[in-house]
């Protein structure tokens, strides 16, 4: 079961001070649905505003991204550029 850590404070309106979860999910899409089920609105917020880092690689907008079973997943704000 992947361990998910949320970086930054953007999710506080949905989850309060908690920043770590274990989530039963093998894909990013599944992860969004699970987070939404537990904290209504959080899934959509994550999907729209956050990127996911697995093993240090950052992925943005990747429903199909596979989450390895015991991976450490970080959710960080989406990054733009200039």
């Amino acid at each position, binding site marked *: 079961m992947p361990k998910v850590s949320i970086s930054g404070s953007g999710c506080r309106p949905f989850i309060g001070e908690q920043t770590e979860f274990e989530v039963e999910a093998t894909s990013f899409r599944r992860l969004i649905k699970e987070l939404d089920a537990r904290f209504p609105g959080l899934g959509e917020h994550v999907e729209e*505003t956050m990127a996911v880092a697995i093993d240090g690689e950052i992925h943005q907008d990747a429903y199909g991204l596979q989450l390895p079973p015991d991976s450490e997943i970080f959710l960080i704000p989406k990054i733009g550029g200039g």
Partner: protein
Amino acid sequence: MNFVANKSELKVVGTRPVRPDGIDKVTGKAMFGADLTMAGTLTGKVLRSPHAHARIVAIDASKALALPGVKAVITAADFPEISSEEAAAGDGAVNFRHMAHNVLARDKVLYEGHAVAAVAATSQAIADAAAALIEITYEVLPFVIDVEAAMADGAPLLHDDIKYNGKPSNITKRVEFKLGDADAGLAEADVVVEGRYETTAVHQGYIEPHAVIASVNPDGQTQIFASSQGQFMIRQYVSKILAMDIANIRVTPAEIGGGFGGKTLVYLEPLAVALSRKAGKPVKMVMNREEVFRATGPTSGGVMTVKIGAKKDGTITGATIDIALQAGAFPGSPVAPACMCAFACYDLKNVRASGFDVVSNRSKIAAYRAPGAPISAFGVESAMDDLATKLGMDPIALREKNAAKAGTKAAYGPVFPEIGFEQVLEAAKSHPHWSAPLGPNQGRGVATGFWFNIGGDSSASVFVNEDGTISVVSGSPDIGGSRASMAMMAAEVLGVPYEKVRPIVGDTAQIGITGMTGGSRVTFATGMATVQAAEKVVDELKKRAAMIWDISPEAVDWKDGEAVPAGANAGGFDPMPLAAIAAKAGKTGGPIGSEVSINAQGAGAGFGAHICDVEVDPETGFVKVLRYTAVQDVGRAIHPSYVEGQIQGGAVQGIGWALNEEYLYDKNGRMDNAGFLDYRVPVASDLPMIEAVVVEVPNKRHPFGVRGVGEVPIIPPLAAVGNAIKAAIGVRMHSLPMSPPKILAAIDGKA
């Protein structure tokens, strides 16, 4: 295609051919945003607010409309109302309601220069006269410019619907990133440094002002030709702001004279389209330099407090940064990336970065090369320098002691994969610049920086022409030499000379959706799409050769631009060059080509370290930059000259930001220096040659190892220059720009 680890296998990638757009650009033939003409084009002109903050009571355009030659006038009434909606578009979330209100003020003007109305007329002179005839009744309101003043109780409020902690406020949000317990970490330090730092708004300073020509047909089909970092962005934003179908909008990106993030959004395009729709003729709009300064988006200024604590041996035990950035008239300063990048170079167990986003009555900020990161880096890297001094440590050694590496948990959360920070520090340390002697009144400073680099949506096509030459179409406007890199990567995969591959940048109808050129993503993401398209073409070429030879496709290999039998068993065929296969394409199945659209993942972070030598005139505070070396890990340099160019350009912008650039406001809240005369960008004679040192720690997720280069180089210069000045005059400068009067005051204050 798997990552090519061995550089010596590469034949085209890593060489320095002439860019395909070079001749047009140096002879003046290149078509920039203002260069396209269409029959019957009208000239558009924007009327802008003279007030920093005011309610729009009434707009009377009757006199303007009565002027002969005026064909249309628009105000916010011509734009659809957009409800408060956050819509994800591209990188990060865009609030189209705010964007629409920035393009054309509705109800209130929020900064001097805010667009209030626009006219289209048959000549510039008539358009100017008409704009002057539009009568606007304003109710002038108190304004606030400075970030701390905007945060204070009782400050004039810009937006009724912005609240913080339940109260109406100019603070739009607070962000926080932390690991461990920063306060506890600071408490166990042997040495602590603390400093407050201030920066001001600075502009990207692109030489080419915004320019667009738009033509709307009666059936709604619309053509836009514009200077921009994203043709698909323009298409999408115009469609949202004006409630038009995307299919009806075709956007062609012109050659661009610089963007640096400032052209990743729209200002004139919705106006030109709305005017063209009303007037029934094409409308061209070009900003003058004053408008660029007053009404486009500089980057934020702000204030920050940095605290770093370390043990005597240099190990950092705790670090914090608290920063407030001004976003301009609408929310959206880069305070989150400023916090995320602030300590990203270092392996820290206890760190906290927090920040406020604050609105105030100045132009809405836009992205500028690694948005937010240079600002926080100024504070952090200055503090690191003070820490090194207090510890009696060499500044590079202090960074090496705490350097992030593969496996380090980044200050903003994720664990770093393979990165090149240590290699960058090593290259800086061993560079002759680091040990060169210095003379009187001279000082040397070093500073480092980090940027994520991003991937994202990219599309590219590769076509085989009848004679075996290749056409490459990609969706990324070329602001740094990227189309040359696309051609080089395609040539490498196909095994043909670079001169046989001609790249173009496609418009929105010619190529698949591609995200903006920015975020240091094009060589990485669009390169990846180009490589994949070229690989598909290679597969197809092998199939066609197999057909011609009448053998199985598995029996064909591709080598140096030719199909060859895979082994002796395949048959004793002579190699078949690409041109020969191309000539028979019609008979073997039809034209050969491929398009790839991807969302490129796995972008690799970049690190840089800059060394700066300055000489300070102790009687005037004048700073001369004597020598500048910029070291950066770029993953792999596809075209080393353009990679070096990016490094040099970013360094120069950072030096200008450090020394002389600032937005100055008068007592009425109007920008006082809205021109290059008094907004002081470095001129060529101000700077020595910037020596760019390219380090390559490849990002294996990209077939050639690319990380992206454009943004990292603007991050270290602010503190590199500040640290050099500290070394020269013995005083720490806490406020940018470090202009001569401030330096002289610091020298005299010390005496």
